[in-house]
């Protein structure tokens, strides 16, 4: 292959390339820069991600690259944009928390970049090998990130659990892929689709058996209920910015892959699955919300709330229509923004006080810094799905798609769940706005000034996006619609 074609091929995976190169550069810089001045590494990471985001502006050709391995269409552009936005916010949020917890090292940024690259690959994958590779790249990167604070017992435990169970689930996924390969004769999605299209029901038992195991693998990564037990422990153990990143990035990537496998690769299979997804969504939402009710640590509560949101996302998948997938994408965007925002506020609180995970640490926050309190309230109300916020728009679109496809009862269950969710989100808001007994209600009003540049950027950015998606959702709705158009 002449260099020209290589260059042409690279155009398909440009963002992945940029991110990886930035990662490598950061590692090199890290090796040479003295201990004190690690700050600019974060800046380099941010610039790298911004450039990658820039490349998305070019209109994707929708062609396949590297002989069918990777496809660069609107769908992958939208999801990559969401992933990179998430990564960007995580970088901004984690500047101060790294300095505070002494993890000031280049590897952190490099690993997050590599993980993001892996996720984008997975979303772009048009071939199951690439899908599996992307999955493993970001999983392994995140295993390390979770275990990054070596001297913390909880982080070690979290990392161990994540590694063991992650590997276990990948085993299932792989085993499932073998059977799908066996049934369809190829691992490339387009060929599979063609094969299934014309072949009559051959090896269908292998096909269904394989798809079942693949669903199990994906369900583990998405933390759907029977497979979700690892999530709270790992989220609680990991450093907060990483928890934010995991909660947001992994979901987007795996859902992208799920949609591709079932809508592009195995079109005939997924109608059978909607009944099961229906049950999975219902159980995930309910258990996620119920577990969150009983938590007294905000971090663990947000972990369970992310499980519940996985349930809402699954409702969009159940809807199994063009509107459903559009709603899925918009919801992913909204969820990314508000979730990272909420975790960002937690990080900001942690930077101010020695601990920011327990509910008690938030008591009287409004007195100490009203700016953080307002943002926290905005993110929590958005997570609860109260209008003019992104959360409401996401939920509204998902529910309307589900009702359109006739799953009214699932929507009613989802709606009741969001009332339960509203309770524990409101509980946090109450604690934030209740003056701490004893402490004077009128604490030193510091406003945004004491927040560091990074934190302020991240939180204001996330807050603005939450409001914008909430008030003018049409722009994002159109983008999502075109993105989904590609799949049908």
């Amino acid at each position: 292959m002449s260099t020209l074609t290589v260059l042409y091929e690279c155009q398909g995976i440009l963002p992945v390339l940029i991110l990886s190169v930035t990662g490598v550069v950061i590692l090199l810089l890290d090796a040479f820069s003295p201990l004190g001045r690690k700050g600019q590494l974060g800046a380099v990471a941010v610039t790298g991600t911004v450039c990658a985001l820039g490349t998305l502006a070019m209109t994707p050709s929708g062609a396949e690259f590297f002989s069918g391995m990777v496809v660069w269409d609107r769908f992958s552009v939208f999801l990559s944009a969401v992933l990179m936005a998430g990564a960007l916010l995580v970088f901004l949020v984690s500047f101060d928390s790294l300095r505070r917890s002494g993890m000031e090292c280049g590897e952190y940024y490099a690993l997050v970049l590599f993980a993001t690259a892996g996720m984008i690959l997975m979303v772009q994958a048009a071939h199951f090998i690439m899908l599996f590779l992307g999955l493993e790249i970001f999983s392994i990167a995140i295993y390390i990130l979770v275990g990054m604070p070596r001297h913390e017992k909880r982080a070690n435990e979290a990392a161990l659990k994540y590694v063991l169970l992650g590997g276990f689930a990948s085993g299932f996924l792989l085993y499932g892929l073998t059977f799908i390969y066996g049934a369809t004769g190829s691992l490339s999605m387009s060929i599979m689709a063609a094969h299934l299209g014309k072949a009559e029901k051959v090896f269908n038992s292998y096909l269904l058996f394989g798809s079942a195991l693949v669903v199990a693998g994906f369900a583990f990564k998405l933390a759907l209920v029977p497979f979700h037990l690892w999530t709270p422990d790992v989220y609680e153990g990991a450093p907060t910015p990483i928890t934010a990143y995991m909660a947001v990035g992994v979901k987007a990537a795996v859902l992208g892959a799920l949609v591709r496998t079932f809508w592009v690769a195995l079109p005939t299979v997924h109608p059978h699955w909607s009944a099961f997804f229906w049950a999975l969504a219902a159980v995930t939402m309910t258990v996620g919300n119920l577990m969150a009710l009983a938590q007294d640590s905000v971090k663990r509560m947000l972990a369970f709330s992310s499980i519940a949101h996985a349930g809402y996302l699954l409702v969009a998948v159940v809807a199994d229509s063009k509107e459903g997938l559009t709603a899925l994408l918009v919801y992913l965007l909204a969820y990314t923004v508000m979730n990272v925002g909420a975790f960002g506020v937690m990080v900001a609180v942690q930077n101010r006080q020695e601990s920011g995970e327990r509910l008690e640490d938030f008591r009287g926050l409004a007195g100490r810094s009203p700016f953080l309190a307002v943002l926290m309230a905005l993110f929590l109300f958005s997570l609860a799905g109260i209008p003019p916020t992104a959360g409401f728009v996401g939920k509204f679109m998902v529910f309307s798609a589900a009702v359109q496809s006739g799953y009214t009862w699932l929507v009613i269950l989802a709606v009741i769940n969001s009332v339960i969710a509203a309770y524990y989100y409101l509980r946090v808001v109450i604690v934030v706005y209740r003056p701490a007994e004893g402490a004077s209600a009128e604490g030193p009003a510091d406003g945004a000034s004491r927040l560091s540049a990074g934190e302020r950027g991240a939180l204001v950015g996330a807050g603005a996006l939450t409001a914008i998606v909430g008030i003018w959702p049409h722009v994002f709705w159109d983008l999502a619609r075109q993105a989904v158009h590609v799949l049908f």
Partner: protein
Amino acid sequence: MAVPVHYYLIVSALLFGIGVLGVLTRRNAIVIFMSIELMLNAGNLSFVAFSKALEGLDGQLFVFFVMVVAAAEVTVGLAIIVTLFRNWKTIFVDEVRLLKG
């Protein structure tokens, strides 16, 4: 006379079963890792079997990637187990249960 495909499949299924049982029963983190490797290799075996049955190279190609991934995963896993041991002084999984509830 080629060995029919489903013989291999049965062997790989057995391997996979042993791997899963290993993960469920053993208390030592390292042994759990080995069982995970076992499961992955069961996958490899069935891939090769299918690839031969379908005379396609995709399967075998996949095997290489799986091996690479397995290797990467083991290194990271062992690193984590080492750090865990340094703090917890144990690698028995059932003793490591600080995070719960």
